[in-house]
């Protein structure tokens, strides 16, 4: 275990390394001071200086638990190694120090805020880590892959360099595919005045187009008046939020919400993604001066809950294999959807075996907070950093669970790697996958 932690210090990231070549201690100090003057307030000061180093946050963190309780991975330990030193030395730190700080803030913390639930004072370590990430952004030493994603957002307003025509083409392609199964099915593009704008994340048109297909089938069966835009703004995801490029975060959220306003929809229903929810419900809207999302935002969990509870979607035959439930931090700890999630899962599945701890005390998938978006160099560090999740999954499996339901894209990515690496042998599904499978499809032509 210790060895794995040591190995982790040898990882080469082009974004950090090459970015650091342009840095000098003077430049670090200058950028640090400028940022402290402009953005460091009472929260940062209190979060860093009033921590009594009691260690009560340590066991909240899956990295800490998974790396054999290596104190460097304890939440307060991450602050101690980064922001606390920066503040104590007033930014007079070495380039090596900042490289390490970038690594700690970007690849060892999922910003899951579980530690805020374990710190007696409610100190927000995720906030401090985000502050460090923003400093790293200002210094140009963000990890390469997540930086590339943030750059994609800045150009295309989506996460994956999806071009405008590719997006529309994907929708039309999925519409055609779905029509083979359900005659007359439509993915209404640019339908002004629809009730719902269905928004997704960049990887959906790129890699998981079947999710759009499934969503269309569900919308269609529920008889809803919905639309998807043919313009940038369709993507709700946001890695700029996680590199600390708050200006780009704000810019892409503006586009997203103004797309909803332009389409005159009553609300945005978003696919099964966690970080995007955080961006449009919590961080992105605030960065623009909107106290809450200007247009109502409904996450898929809540949406499916509505559809099933109201009878708009009927279940033909429940999903038989025993499932377990993974609670995505950003919609559970971030929005309290755990009861609705359970309602939906129990409504569509025969047997449910819970993992523990769960609900708002769940363990993160270790992919969240942009960590999986830091890409291949950091993959094993992330996977090994979540042995506790592997153990939870093993436990659930030993009680019969064959499928893990995870209503979040990043969780899927993270859990997939955990399941594969630890040879757990478990299926991974979105709620939409199962609902599509078990629902009554009124106009099916098959």
């Amino acid at each position, binding site marked *: 275990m210790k060895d794995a932690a040591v190995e982790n210090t040898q990882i080469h990231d082009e974004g950090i390394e090459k970015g650091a070549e342009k840095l000098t201690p003077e430049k670090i100090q200058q950028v640090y001071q400028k940022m402290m003057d402009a*953005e*460091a*307030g*009472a*929260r940062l*000061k*209190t*979060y860093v*200086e*009033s*921590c*009594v*180093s*009691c*260690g*009560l946050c*340590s*066991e*909240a963190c899956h990295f*800490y638990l998974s790396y054999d*309780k290596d*104190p*460097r991975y*304890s939440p*307060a*330990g991450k602050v*101690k190694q980064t922001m606390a030193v920066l503040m104590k030395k007033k930014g007079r730190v070495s380039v090596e120090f900042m490289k390490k700080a970038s690594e700690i803030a970007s690849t060892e913390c999922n910003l899951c805020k579980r530690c*805020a*639930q*374990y710190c*007696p*004072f*409610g*100190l*927000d370590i995720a906030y401090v880590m985000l502050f460090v990430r923003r400093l790293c952004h200002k210094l140009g030493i963000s990890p390469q892959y997540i930086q590339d994603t943030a750059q994609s957002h800045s150009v295309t307003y989506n996460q994956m360099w999806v071009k405008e025509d590719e997006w529309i083409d994907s929708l039309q392609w999925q519409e055609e595919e779905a029509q083979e199964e359900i005659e007359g099915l439509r993915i209404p593009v640019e339908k002004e005045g629809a009730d719902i704008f269905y928004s997704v994340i960049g990887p959906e048109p790129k890699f998981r187009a079947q999710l759009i297909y499934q969503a269309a089938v569900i919308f269609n069966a529920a008889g809803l008046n919905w639309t998807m835009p043919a313009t940038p703004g369709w993507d709700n995801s946001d890695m700029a939020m996680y590199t600390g490029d708050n200006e780009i975060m704000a810019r892409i959220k503006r586009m997203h919400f103004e797309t909803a306003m332009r389409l005159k929809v009553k609300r945005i229903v978003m696919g099964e993604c966690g970080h995007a929810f955080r961006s449009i419900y*919590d961080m992105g809207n*605030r960065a623009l001066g909107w*106290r*809450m999302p200007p247009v109502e935002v409904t996450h898929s969990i809540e949406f499916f809950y509505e559809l099933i509870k109201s009878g708009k979607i009927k279940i033909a035959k429940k999903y038989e294999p025993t499932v377990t439930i993974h609670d995505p931090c950003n919609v*559970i*700890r*971030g*929005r*309290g959807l*755990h009861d609705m999630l359970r309602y939906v899962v129990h409504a569509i599945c025969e047997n449910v075996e819970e993992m523990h*701890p769960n609900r*708002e*005390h769940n363990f993160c998938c270790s992919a969240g907070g942009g960590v999986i978006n830091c890409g291949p160099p950091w993959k094993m560090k992330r996977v090994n950093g979540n042995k506790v999740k592997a153990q939870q999954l093993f436990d659930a499996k030993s009680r019969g669970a064959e499928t893990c339901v995870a209503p979040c894209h990043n969780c899927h990515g993270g859990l997939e790697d955990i399941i594969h690496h630890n040879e757990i042998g478990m299926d991974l599904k979105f709620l939409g996958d199962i609902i599509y499978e078990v629902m009554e499809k009124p106009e099916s032509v098959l």
Partner: protein
Amino acid sequence: MHAIYNFVSGPLAWVAFILFFGGILYQLISRAMLAKKKDAYVYEYWNFYYAFRSILHWIFPFASTNSRKRPFLSIITFIFHLSIFVAPLFLFAHITLINEAFNVSWWFLPDGVADILTLVVIGACIFFLVRRMVQPDVKFLSSTSDYVLLALVAAPFVTGYWAYHQWPGNQIVTILHMLSAEVLLAIIPFTKLNHMFLFFFTRGYMGSEFGGVRFARDW
């Protein structure tokens, strides 16, 4: 000796109290102003109901998940925090002094009970010290200042206990008792001991965000 005693129990005590109360005021006002300027969210999302809900869950032992996970530590910290307030505030000797000076007094603890509470504080400090030195994550997190602060918290209680029991050198120890208590009071607002009053704001803000925006428990 008398001159020192008079100085420590007189002007120095005033200085300590002024620094204590003035320091708290300064910290609260300066942070409130700083937050107004740079942390508008704290004001925007602050909600007294959710703030107190969270504070109450974290003040009492076993009301939070983390507290239930470590019953021994929870009880010790609770009694420790209770004792460092109750023991000095309701000590007969302290109240007598105040009564002599200002002609006000209030209910006091039987000396035997106060004695036990003092021992609890000293015992807890020893426990915290051992924990800091032994438990790897806490050890890693600890800086010299953490040890010094612990010693400074323990000092008035150790010297107070010593003085009360009239052990050898208790004249000097009495002066040291007052001195250490004054030092402690004076530094509270300016060190991480300021969690004494900042707790209500950090916890309250987190409680407000979790209660009012995130709809999730933060305990």
